[in-house]
C-alpha cells in the first residue's frame, strides 16, 4: 500500500483503482475546499490522489452531439472564459465567474464545484470552534443537527457549488468512470438530498467530464448574497423561460442538500400562466431552512422577488 500522502496517478483507471484500494483516499483537483477541510480536521485524506497530472481531463471541446464536453479538471476560470461556454452557455460562464475570487477560480475546477462537499455553518469550522457543537452528525457522527434541532436524523448541509444550478437547468450529464466501468448520469440524479451522503458516487468512481447538450435559449442566473464578497450564495436561481410552449426550468440551488427544481411551477410556466402564479407555485415547492444568516422569511421574500423579476425579464427576452 502506498504510504505517500500526495500521489499523482497517471490515468483515470489508476486513480480509480487507488481510490478503491485506499478507503481514506480523496481525489483532489484544485484542492481549494479539500485543503481547508483537512486543515480543520474534518477529513483525513490518505492519500490525496492528485488528478491534474492526468492528460485530457481539463479539455473543453465540442462533442459529437452538437453539445460541449467539459473535462472535470477544467478550472472555473477556464470554463468562464472559454468561447464555447460564453457563447452557448452564458449562464454557466456567469456562475463560474461568481465563485469566490480570481485566485480560487484559477485552481478550483468544475468537477470540484459539482462534487463540492456539502457545507454548513456548524461543520466548516476548526476543531476549537466545534467543541461547542461536538454532536454534529456530519462532523463527528454524533446525534444532533444544530440547524434543525428537532430533526431525529438527517443532515441539512447544503449543496453549495454555484455552477450546479445552471448545469441542472441546462440538462447536463456527468461522465462517471471507475475501474469497473463507466456510466452517464443526469446531473440531477447525482445529488442524493442528504448532507452526509450527498453524491451518488460509487466506490472508486470519479467524475471525468460534464456533458452539455445543445444550447438552449437565453435565461437568467442569479447568485444572491447579502454582500458581493467571496462567500457562498444565500440562494442561486437559474431560470429558463419556455420555448415554444415547453422546456422551462426553474432551479433553486444552494438552499438544500441538493439542487431543487420547481416542477409544477415549470409546468405552469410552460403553459403560459401569469408570472405571479408561477412564482407562488414555485415557492410552495422549494423548502427553505433558516440558517444563521438567512432566515426562512428573508429567503422566501427575496427569492420570490428575484424570481418575479427574472420571469418578467424573460418575457422581455422572448419578445426580442
Amino acid at each position, binding site marked *: 500500500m502506498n504510504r505517500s500522502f500526495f500521489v499523482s496517478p497517471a490515468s483515470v483507471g489508476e486513480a480509480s483503482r487507488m481510490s478503491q484500494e485506499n478507503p481514506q483516499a480523496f481525489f483532489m483537483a484544485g484542492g481549494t475546499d479539500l485543503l481547508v477541510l483537512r486543515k480543520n480536521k474534518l477529513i483525513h485524506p490518505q492519500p490525496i490522489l492528485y488528478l491534474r497530472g492526468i492528460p485530457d481531463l481539463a479539455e473543453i471541446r465540442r462533442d459529437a452531439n452538437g453539445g460541449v464536453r467539459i473535462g472535470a479538471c477544467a478550472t472555473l476560470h477556464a470554463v468562464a472564459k472559454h468561447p464555447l461556454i460564453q457563447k452557448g452557455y452564458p449562464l454557466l460562464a456567469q456562475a463560474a465567474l461568481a465563485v469566490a475570487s480570481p485566485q480560487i477560480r484559477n485552481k478550483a475546477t468544475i468537477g470540484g464545484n459539482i462534487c463540492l462537499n456539502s457545507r454548513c455553518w456548524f461543520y466548516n469550522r476548526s476543531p*476549537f*470552534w466545534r467543541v461547542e457543537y461536538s454532536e454534529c452528525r456530519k462532523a463527528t457522527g454524533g446525534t444532533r443537527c444544530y440547524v434543525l434541532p428537532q430533526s431525529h436524523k438527517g443532515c441539512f448541509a447544503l449543496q453549495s457549488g454555484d455552477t450546479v444550478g445552471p448545469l441542472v437547468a441546462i440538462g447536463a450529464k456527468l461522465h462517471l468512470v471507475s475501474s469497473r466501468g463507466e456510466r452517464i448520469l443526469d446531473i440531477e440524479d447525482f445529488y442524493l438530498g442528504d448532507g452526509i451522503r450527498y453524491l451518488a458516487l460509487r466506490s472508486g468512481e470519479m467524475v471525468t467530464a460534464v456533458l452539455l447538450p445543445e444550447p438552449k435559449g437565453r435565461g437568467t442566473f442569479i447568485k444572491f448574497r447579502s*454582500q458581493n464578497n467571496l462567500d457562498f450564495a444565500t440562494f442561486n436561481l437559474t431560470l429558463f423561460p419556455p420555448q415554444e410552449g415547453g422546456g422551462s426550468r426553474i432551479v433553486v440551488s444552494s438552499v438544500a442538500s441538493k439542487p431543487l427544481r420547481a416542477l409544477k411551477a415549470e409546468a405552469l410556466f410552460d403553459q403560459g400562466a401569469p408570472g405571479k402564479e408561477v412564482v407562488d407555485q414555485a415557492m410552495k415547492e422549494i423548502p427553505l431552512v433558516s440558517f444563521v444568516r438567512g432566515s426562512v422569511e428573508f429567503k422566501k421574500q427575496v427569492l420570490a422577488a428575484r424570481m418575479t423579476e427574472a420571469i418578467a425579464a424573460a418575457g422581455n427576452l422572448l419578445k426580442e
Partner: protein
Amino acid sequence: MDSPRIITKRVNRPDSFAKVTGRAKFTMDLSFPGMLTGKILRSPRHHARILHLDPTPALKVPGVKAVITARDLPPVVYGFGDRRADMTVFAIDRVRYKGDEVAAVAAADEDAAHEALERIRVEYEDLPAVFDPEAAVQEGAPQLHDDSPGNIGVRIRINKGDMDRALAEAYLVREDRFDTQRVHQSYAEPYACVADWDAEGKITLYTGTMNASGLQIMLSRVLKVPVGRIRVIQSHTGGSFGSKVVLNSIYPASAVLSRITGRPVKMVYTREEEYFASRPRYAGRYYVKTAVKRDGTILGRELTFFYDAGAYCDMAAAMIIVCSHRNDSVYRIPSIRTDAKLVYTNKSPVGAYRGYGNPQNTFAFDSQLDMIAGELGLDPAEIRLRNATRSGDTTVHGWKITSCGLTEAIEQTVKASGWKAKRGKRRDLRRGIGMACTIHEVDDRHSDAFAGSNAHVEILPDGEAVIYSGEGEYGQGRDTVFCQIAAEVLGLPLESVRILLPDTDITPYALGPWGSRVTYSGGLAVARAAEEARKILLQEAANMLEANPADLHLREGKIFIRGIAQPRATVAEAAHFALFRKEGKRIRGSGQDEPATTKMDPTKQSSPCSTYSFACQAVEVEVNEQTGEVKILKVWTANDGGNILNPIGAEGQIEGQVLQGIGFAKTEEMIYRHGHLLNPDFMTSGTAGPFDAPPLDIYFTKTHDPSGPFGAKGVAEVAAPPTAAALANAIYDAVGVRIKKLPLSPENVLQAVREQGGPGR
C-alpha cells in the same frame, strides 16, 4: 512663514520601496537562529473553574522544549495603565471566556506545538455564564469577578447643567434605544511577536505594536523585570486601528518561554484566534433621552449606556472614560446626565478600534437627532447647523474648542451633495440622503504624568537627517508626515530625511495613539527637535563660514548667506565639520510636546485634549424594499483636520475610514449565539470589500489650528464614526423606515420594512 515646500504637498511614503517590493519585514517574517514556535492553549469553555491543570505530558512530544502556565510567571494582576486590574497573563483558577489563555508551549515546529497543546491535561468545571450586559447586571446573574458586584467593572455617572429642568422646559422629549454590534478591526497582519530573553537577562520583543513605549512599561510590570532590561522593537505593522496597544498575553508568554529555553520564541495568531482572543470593537446598548426646544435647540441629553466589556476590562476601563462623554461636545448641549456601565460578560475582552465609542455613539445620537428633526418639521442639516459646536465654545464638559470646522463641514456637505434638492423629495424612487456629524479628540490625557511626545532629530555628516520618535507607524503615515515636517524645518529634500521605527533602546518615550495625536503631538515634538537641530547646524555652519548665524538660511540641503544667490556650503559639509572638528559636536536636537491639558474626568470640568477634529458626512442610497438591499450611491465627507500636511495620506485615511464605517454600518458583525462566536473569519464576518466601496467625495475644511504643527490636527478617526447614522438616516429618507440596530444588512432592513408597515409607505 515661507511658502511650504514639502508639507501640504503630495509626496510618496518613505517606506514605499520596501513595502512594494515585499522587502519590508513584518514580525512574522523575522527569523533567528534556534528560534522556536510558541502556541497558546485556550479555554474552550465560556466560564469554568480550573480543577486540575497538568502541562507535563506536553513535554513528552518530540520537539517540545517548554510548557508554561500561570505558575511560571509572577502573580501579577494587571489592567491597562493604572486602570481596573482584573487580568493575569494566564488564567489561575478560572477561565472567563472561550479563548482565555491557560498555558503556552514552545516547540521546534508548529506541528509539535499543536500536538503539545493537545496533550496538556485540563479539567474544567463549568460555571453558569452570562452573555448580555443587561442580563449581567441583574440580581442573580453569574458573577465574573468577585470584586465586581453586579458585573460592573467601571461605572461612570455624569451630571452637568440641570437635566431635570431641561426635561421640564422642553418642547419635545424623545426617548429611544439603539443597539450596535461587535465588529473586528480585521487588520491584515495577525498578532505576532518574537521574544528573546538573552543570557544577560535582557528581553528583546519584536512585534507590530502601536505603543512600544507603553508596552515596555506594561511588560516590566507583568514580568517584574526592570524597564531597562526590556527592549521593544516595532516591526513593520500590518494595520492595527487601535487594537495593538494592549499587552497581549503572547508577549509575556513568549518572553518566559524564551527565558526557560534560552532560545528566541515566535508566536503568531491564527486568523481564528484573532476573532476569539484579540480586542474587537465593543457592542453598545444606548437608552437616549433628549430634550429640545421648539426650534430644535438641544436643551439636554440623558443617557443610560451599557458597554459590553467581555470578560476583562483591559483597555475598556480607560476607553469608557472617553466614550461616556466625548460625543456630548459635537453639538452645544447645556445639560448632560449619563449613567455608563462597563459590564462583564463571558466573551472575549474588547479594545480600541478607530474612534472607539464614536461610531456607536454617533449612530445613537445622530439617528435620534434626525427623528427629533422629523417631529419638529426641521431639516436635519438645519438642526445640526443650529446646534453645532463652534470655535471659541467651552462645551458642557469644559472642553475648550479652539479651531473648529464643523459648521463649514456641514455647509460644504449640504452644497456638495445637492442636499436641498434631494432630502425628503425622492421617496417615489426609494432614494434618500442622510447625514451625521462627529467630533474627535486630538490627544487625550488620562493621567497627571507625562502625556506627550519626545523626539530627536540628528543631522549626519552625509547631510541626511534621522528622526527618532516613540510614536508608531502602522500604515497611517507617521513616517511621511514626520519626515515632511523635519524636511520643511531643515530645508532638506524629503529623500534626505529618514525615520526609524520605534525601538525603546533608541527612540524616546511617546504616549502612543490616544485620540488622533500622532501628527499633532508627535509632529510638534519632531518640529521642535528639528528646530533645535537647525539652530545647532546654523551655529556650526556660521563657525565654519565665519559668518553670522542670523544671516544663514537653508534650502534643498544647501546653506545660503542672505543676499547671495549661490550656496556657500552644503548641510553635509557643515555637519561633517561639526562632528570632526576639535571638540566636535553631534548635530542633534531634542523636542518635546507636553500638552497643556488636564486629566480627563467626565464627572468634572476638564480640558483633556489639545484640540479637536470634526467631520460631517452624507450618504445617498437607493433602497430595494423587496429584498432589503441598500445601494449606497455616493458618500460625501467634509473633514476638519486642520492644515493637511500630507494630502495623499489624509485622503487615504478618509477612504479607509469610510469603508470601515460602511462595514460597521452595513456588512459586518461578530455573531454570537448563546455566547458562542459563530463567524470567526473575514468572509462570514462580512468584512467590507472592493464592491462595498461607494463613489466618495472628500473635502478638507480650511481650518488652521493655532497650536498644531503648521496648523495640523488629526484626521485618522473622524470619517468612520458618522457613516452608520448617515446611512440609517438616508434609509429613513428613502423609505420611511427607522432602524435602530446595526448592521443595516438586507435581512435586517427587510425585517424593519415588514415590521414598520411594508413597502410603499
